[in-house]
């Protein structure tokens, strides 16, 4: 993995730039001492580290604009930074660039129940939005596993999803408007509190653009009324394929559960050892299903769901009888990643999406890859939308293990594309999967995307070196590396 090589003339401007930033923004808003910059040397993809020249912490949109203008004038690239919880290295600093952190812009600006919207600064956390409106009976639907820490600005940049996104959509489906600072410092508003916008869907373009097109300085989010009732059930199957078939049967029956998650034997065992969620030891696969909505609907559908799961071959079904039991069922799933960290010194987490019908084929191939490499692979995934998170277990202290794991990881992602899926369901491309982009898109496709960047950020001021490969051939990339359970944010749930 290569980042654009640092330019000497930029590095030479470091002191001048820091002075100007200090002059414009004040002492507390600029971090420039090496010891203080350590915190910003990587996001949650900690295998790649790089200290920036400086970190700027603006408090207002005007200060963001000033920073952008200053950097643009000196040809210094900017890496936007939310909470640094991203898993694909999208916020990895550049040696000859500055990091622009939105952490100090963390105020909730407006709660508008009538328009079912909340307007926030980008540094507000995902969960912070829900917490601000919970007392009114509302919540913000996208729920990435890092929601305690991840920021709304980062969510928009990555188009974050979560376990409920089949039914409720990802960030792009729950965003009404943004304010954005462009690479010439101009401040533009896209959308507002209405659901339809005039002109091209620029809001849709900026969402998921991984910090390449502009700096988001404000966001208006759609909030939803909290469902009257949520019920969860766990079903045990003789095979992961069987659990996959059950998911297809549920959808074919016209149900769209709020969440559907599958775990394989290895994940079940590791999780049970770790948190004791009451999962059936020895089972080949389990499926968690959650229904939510009006109580009358959930209760009606729960009975039907049970029948469907039995017909699909579930050998055991356990329904959570109350909220506490529901939370306990989820606790196991949410602990699956850290549980892996206990049984293996290292793991790689992949994030491809496949058409669900290809699950048996993909699982067989993953199993083969596991056998050939000698590395165990645990499978947990968001089954409703086909988003796989295979975890390749390895030991970086064993010579050659890391390379083998990387190979298996790249093979799995290529396989996802081969069967009609995509490289990333929710973690983003960043630097992690950047060099795999040509496996999914040809030159003309990539040209069209990069041309958009060229026209909106002509000098490539924002986050250069991310998402789009420098060399266009289907290469092998790294994935989410975790050594000795050493996640950058160990306190965050990862699922």
């Amino acid at each position: 993995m290569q980042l654009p090589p640092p330019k000497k003339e930029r590095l030479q401007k470091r002191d001048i730039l820091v002075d100007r930033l200090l002059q414009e923004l004040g002492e507390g808003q600029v971090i420039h001492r090496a010891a203080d910059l350590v915190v910003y040397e990587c996001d949650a993809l900690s295998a790649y580290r790089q200290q920036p020249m400086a970190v700027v912490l603006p408090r207002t949109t005007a200060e963001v604009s000033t920073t952008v203008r200053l950097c643009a004038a000196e040809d210094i690239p900017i890496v936007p930074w939310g909470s640094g919880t991203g898993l694909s290295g999208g916020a990895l600093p550049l040696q000859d660039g500055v990091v622009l952190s939105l952490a100090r812009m963390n105020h909730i600006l407006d709660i508008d129940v009538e328009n079912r919207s909340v307007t926030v600064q980008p540094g507000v956390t995902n969960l912070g939005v829900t917490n601000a409106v919970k007392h009114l009976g509302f919540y913000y639907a996208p729920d990435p596993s890092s929601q305690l820490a991840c920021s709304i600005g980062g969510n928009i940049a990555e188009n974050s999803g979560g376990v409920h996104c089949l039914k409720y959509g990802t960030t792009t489906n729950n965003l009404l408007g943004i304010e954005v600072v462009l690479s010439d410092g101009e401040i533009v508003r896209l959308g507002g509190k209405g659901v339809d916008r005039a002109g091209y869907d620029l809001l849709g373009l900026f969402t998921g653009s991984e910090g390449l097109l502009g700096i988001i300085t404000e966001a208006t989010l759609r909030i939803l009324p909290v469902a009257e009732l949520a019920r969860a059930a766990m079903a045990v199957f003789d095979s992961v394929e069987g659990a996959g078939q059950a998911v297809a049967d549920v959808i074919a029956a016209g149900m769209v559960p709020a969440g559907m998650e599958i775990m394989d034997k290895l994940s079940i065992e590791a999780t049970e050892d770790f948190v004791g969620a009451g999962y059936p030891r020895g089972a080949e696969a389990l499926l968690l299903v959650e229904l939510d909505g009006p109580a009358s609907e959930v209760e009606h559908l729960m009975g039907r769901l049970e029948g469907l799961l039995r017909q699909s071959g579930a050998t055991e079904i356990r329904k959570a009888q109350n909220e506490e039991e529901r939370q306990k069922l989820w606790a196991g799933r949410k602990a699956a990643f850290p549980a892996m960290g206990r049984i293996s010194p290292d793991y790689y987490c992949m994030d491809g999406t496949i058409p669900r019908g290809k699950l048996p084929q993909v699982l067989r191939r993953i199993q083969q890859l596991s056998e050939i490499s000698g590395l165990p692979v645990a499978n947990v995934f968001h089954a409703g939308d086909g988003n796989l998170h295979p975890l390749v277990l390895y030991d970086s202290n064993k010579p050659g293990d890391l390379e083998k794991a990387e190979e298996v990881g790249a093979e799995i992602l290529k396989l996802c594309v081969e069967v009609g899926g995509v490289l990333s369901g929710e973690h983003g491309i960043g630097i992690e999967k950047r060099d795999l982009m040509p496996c999914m898109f040809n030159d003309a496709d990539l040209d069209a995307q990069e041309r958009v960047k060229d026209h909106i950020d002509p000098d490539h001021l924002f986050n250069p070196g991310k998402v789009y490969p420098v060399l266009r051939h289907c290469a092998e990339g790294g994935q989410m590396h975790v050594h000795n359970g050493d996640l950058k944010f160990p306190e965050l749930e990862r699922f």
Partner: protein
Amino acid sequence: MLAQPTTPEAAQAHVQQALDNNTPLHITGGQSKSRLGRRIENTTHLDLSGLDQLVSYEPGELILVVQPGMRLDAIEQLLATENQHFAFEPPHWGASATAGGTTACNLSGPRRFKAGALRDHLLGIEMIDGHGQRIRAGGKVVKNVTGYDLSKVLSGSFGTLGPLTELCFKVWPKPETQQTLAIHNLDTTAAVQLMLGFAGRPCEITGLAHLPTHNAQDTQTCVRVEGPAPAVRAQLEELKKDIHNEVALRAESESISFWKDLRELTPFQPGPEEVLWRFAIPPASSLELLESLKPFELQRWGLDWGGALLWGLFPQNTTAETLHRAALDCDGNAWRFARDVEDTNEEAFTPLSSGVEKLNNRLKQSFDPKNIFNPGIMYKS
């Protein structure tokens, strides 16, 4: 000149020819939305209605892939065989309506405030850009963050970024049944308040419209609930407790035809001296907008999307600029519908702020540097 390709390759050849000769193209589908946008002239007509094939339908994956000329009615019939549908409830406005044309206009029906717009259900596209290249963006799975989401950009681009050659949609299980409460004789303020309140309830309310008439007795505010029959019944009973006016219950078939009529604009067909306008606004601004429209002799009107969409018929000599101003003042935007083929509809869409306009131009430039696709259909170049 008329070009009617039946393959993407042929469409690409027409685009290449247009690029070589510098002759703009007017891209159309079934022409059922021809009242939208500004009139464009001196173009070669690129008719995509012959690119009408089903590419694949995987009901278990909730995925449908079609060519742009495939007709909406054919698609909906196909989806119905698997008890599925487009959740965004696209308006047809004519039997010839196609998937591509609907996408180009990003048109969504009454369920939009609950289920999202067409752009929320478009997962991937294939198109021909203004460099003559066939390009793909997005994917064919429901969850994907790989690369810029160009499908969104193409939705609602009115053909100005290039002809679409393939569309991948997320389709959805059809609710088992639906019923509608028709509340009589609510005044506008009460109706808007009721809709705003109901939209914030944890119910499967998927339609909220207010249709006033000159005779107050016939004015109705309609609330649609969808889902399994017992759940629909239970929710309607709950909702009724908060309604103090006379209420009529529309059972399934009546409910379906009511919302279909609204979607198809049956109540808003313009008379000979009238022009139709559509305003998209924050729902709580609907009263303010109605107030500001009073001086313009609003003849007939109705609210959909729980107040976020206003349909209105105005005298044909109403100045477009003033109505666009009214929309902007409410943080919204408006569309003026052309009266007929002669109508140039110069100010079809609300002007953009200078920053947004700049970004629009840059995007257009990146896709279509020679400005050959539907030039001027959205805004004066």
